[in-house]
């Protein structure tokens, strides 16, 4: 297998589909969908394969590919994955694979362009998770953000033009601020060794004085934090969620937010002392995320807004886990990134399915849908249970690990955070009760359940993933752990020093 560019294949597969779609006629919808499905299936298959061939014992960055890009400035196309990236790549593959099917059902006009932007975005996401070069890391990051503009602007629902502009500008601002930090790292690292390079491995292998680390970590934390979204820089996110079409919400909440957390993890790895300095702050802000997000979610009547705020609440747990900087906490955080990605993709696909028929997402507009759409109701219930952290589903394992980790480092934070689960359970169960149970309403008699293969596939697939990881977490935790252990060790060594 030596020299087989599996990472490039995973990333270039959607990109190749974009180029192919350029030459396809708009009217040939079946061909358009076929290309999208083929490319995402290939990525998914390869990502699964990657999960199994990644050498957990050896750990570190594997499947490295490196091609010089701009020699005079030390930029190269440099890919490689560690355990954390493997999990994130798999998550991306799962979400886009199901997203393609959700768009099949939900998108009715300008179908070809929709898939082109969707796949372009995904190529960017893959790129971020795989890049070992800071320039490419940034470039892919932007590539993942920019297609959101047309995706929400063209195919979105109410208030889409405002939402999409807000989102694009907010995220680009974060990216620009992070860029300045990354550039500073490039020059500081270069002046140490005399070789100016954007190679992340090289930059991370050096040590910087703590004052510098503390200063530079801040723009990186802000830049990536905006995407998480770290409170108080989260306002772009729920409006974006609410306006986006289903598949885009799935990608946005399922994967894009994880880019932010992933970026923070990488920044911690490069600047361990800076991270140690700022992590208590992150832990504090994570509580705001958990409770503010949760409380607002409770007050929302629009289901998409509810899930949108609930996402920023869940990302609070992820941040708390990251802030613990111990092995179990960070493992939990990464697993939660994975589990929440799958769970929230399921949530948005289900809400989208109902919305496309009913043209409303207001909780009070519905009642007793379970009688009309039993399949959707069951799927929604499973999603709600996962979100509330019930055992047997992936989120439970992840949240448990986060809490165990948090109790060691921040016992007060952890105790407060546990109550967040009650908040989540409250709005999830209440939404389930109001929408799917109680008396059925006459006006929803025509509502159709998910009955065709294409409609059911994404739901079944996502639920299966939640269950598999819930019952057998080590299938993915072992891989994540191989990436987390060296990271945490480096951070703890910095603390002692």
């Amino acid at each position, binding site marked *: 297998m030596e020299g087989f560019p599996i990472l490039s294949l995973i990333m270039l597969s959607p990109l190749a589909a974009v180029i192919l779609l350029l030459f396809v006629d708009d009217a040939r919808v079946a061909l358009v969908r076929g290309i999208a499905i083929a490319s995402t299936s290939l990525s998914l298959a390869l990502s699964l394969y990657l999960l199994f061939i990644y050498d957990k014992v050896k750990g570190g960055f594997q499947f490295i590919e490196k091609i*010089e*890009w*701009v*020699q*005079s*400035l030390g930029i190269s196309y440099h890919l490689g994955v560690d355990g954390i990236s493997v999990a994130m790549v798999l998550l991306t593959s799962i979400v886009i694979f199901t997203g393609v099917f959700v768009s099949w059902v939900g998108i009715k006009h300008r179908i070809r362009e929709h898939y082109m932007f969707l796949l372009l975005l995904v190529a960017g996401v893959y790129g971020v998770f795989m890049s070992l070069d800071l*320039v490419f890391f940034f*470039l892919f990051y*932007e*590539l993942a953000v*920019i297609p959101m*503009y*047309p995706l929400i*602007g*063209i195919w979105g629902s109410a208030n889409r*033009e405002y939402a999409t*502009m807000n989102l*694009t*500008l907010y995220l*680009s*601002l974060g990216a*620009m*601020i992070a*860029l*300045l930090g990354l*550039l*500073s790292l*490039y*020059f500081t690292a270069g002046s140490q060794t005399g070789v100016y390079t954007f190679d992340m491995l090289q930059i991370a292998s050096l040590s910087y004085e703590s004052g510098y680390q503390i200063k530079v970590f801040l723009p990186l934390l802000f830049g990536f934090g905006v995407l998480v979204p770290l409170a108080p820089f989260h306002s772009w996110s729920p409006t974006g969620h609410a306006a986006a079409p289903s598949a885009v919400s799935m990608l946005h909440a399922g994967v894009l937010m994880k880019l932010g957390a992933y970026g923070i993890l990488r920044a911690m790895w490069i600047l361990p002392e800076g991270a140690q300095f700022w992590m208590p702050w992150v832990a504090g802000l994570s509580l705001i995320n958990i409770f503010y997000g949760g409380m607002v979610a409770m007050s929302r009547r629009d289901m998409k807004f509810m899930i949108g705020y609930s996402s920023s609440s869940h990302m609070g747990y992820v941040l708390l886990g990251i802030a613990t900087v111990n092995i179990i906490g960070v493992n939990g955080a990464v697993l939660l990134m994975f589990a929440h990605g799958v769970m929230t993709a399921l949530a948005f696909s289900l809400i989208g399915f109902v919305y496309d028929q009913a043209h409303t997402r207001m909780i009070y507009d519905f009642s007793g849908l379970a009688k009309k759409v039993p399949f959707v109701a069951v799927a929604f219930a499973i999603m709600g249970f996962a979100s509330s952290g019930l055992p047997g589903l992936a989120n439970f394992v992840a949240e448990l690990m986060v809490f165990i980790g948090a109790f060691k480092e921040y016992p007060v934070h952890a105790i407060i955070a546990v109550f967040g689960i009650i908040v989540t359970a409250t709005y999830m169960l209440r939404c389930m009760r109001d929408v799917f149970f109680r008396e059925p309403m006459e006006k929803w008699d025509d509502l159709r359940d998910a009955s065709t293969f294409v409609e059911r596939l994404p739901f079944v697939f996502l639920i299966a993933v939640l269950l598999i990881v819930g019952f057998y977490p080590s299938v993915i935790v072992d891989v994540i752990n191989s990436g987390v252990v060296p990271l945490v060790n480096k951070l703890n060594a910095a603390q002692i020093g």
Partner: protein
Amino acid sequence: MNLFRLIPEFIMLGTAFLLLILELFLPKGSRKAFGVIGILGTVSAAISLPYQDYGLALAGLFVQDQMSIYFKWLFVISSVFVLYIVMLYEDRITNWRGEFYSIIVFAISGMMMLASTTDFVAFYVSLEFLAICLYVLAAFLSDSRVTSEAGLKYLITGALASGFLIYGISFIYGATGATGFAEVAKALQTAEPTGFVIIGIVLMVLGLTFKISSIPFHVWSPDVYQGAPTPVTALLAAASKAAGFVVILRILYVALWPMKAEWMAFVAVISGITLLFGNLAAMPQKDLKRLVAYAGIGSAGYLLMAVAAASELGAGAIMFYLLTYIFGIIGTFTAIVVFHNSEGSDLVESYSGLYKRSPLLAFTLFIGLLSIAGFPPLGGFIAKFYIFMAAVKEGLWVLAVIGALMAIVGMYYFLLVIKSMYLRQPTNPAPIHVDMTTRGLLYFVNAATILLGVYPGPVTDLVMSIAQGVF
């Protein structure tokens, strides 16, 4: 003394004179032939470029080096495209006169001379030669009030800026007793930064801001961009800006290099104000040409940021930026002319639903504007990235943060145009016809912009090696 080093300029001048003479003989209907002859002349000048040897010419007034060749390539590219845009444009104009083509070719040859100057005298002469051509071009459609006003504004600010320049030059001459860039640098190396020299530097820097449309001599640009014939706007936006920066590189990076400490902070301040003004003022614009004008002021701010960095990296970044900028501007203005020919409007709102009416025009504006705004993976992104690198390297943090914030503002107003084209529905669904040659040209420009973003390696290595030779 080697006149052969000026062959590209001579070819251009010869072409311009030929066009003037042919004006007498060719029948009125065959004006398009002028454009073709102009383009052929430019292409022959381009063919001569790779055969140039490096060295001084005309008693050390001009020099042919890597940098002058690079910039001459930029001018040649702009010239070909601008002449082509004129051919598209002229059909719509009633009181058209054939000198238009020849004056454009004269202007290009002036820029080429400017790129080669190594002496304040030669610099001033070339600059004024170019300026007079541009004054005429800006006011060419003299029966239009908007154009007349634009031309007058351009003339008055230009004359004022020239005054600043010549005054500054005289101060520097007084301090150093030399007019050659290298001699001035040599004299300044041992000189103290007295008030005399500082005044010279300040006046000169201010005078130079006219050509690049930055604060404080930027006031002409929105009116002229809007009022001047669109091909002239393209010429001013693309080639003329490049000409301004090659001069800045030669004067600040060579002649005044020993006084680096004095002008760096000054340029940095100008850059910061220009960035803020250009980008913020672009936000409310409704007319696409005006929007691009204000954005062009913003771009001048970014380029000055690289100038203020005063390093090889900065010089390389400027050269890369200008190349991507020229492609962005050419694509944009070709699309504007085609659209204007069909619709008679430059308003952003009239572009609504363009993606349906002409996917190629919409795509060209999409690529061109987003490249100028600095979206990856387009050439403009890489260029902006290099400029930020240069600023961060020298520790110009305030400027870098302003630049970062203004990049977001830039995204905002360009996205408004994109929104109009792609998110709105057209009021008039009739498709807009684009002829085959124009299509080919637009494909080429778009491909170049994308290629510079996806594979910037070779051009970067080239500009960085040229930048090393500047000092």
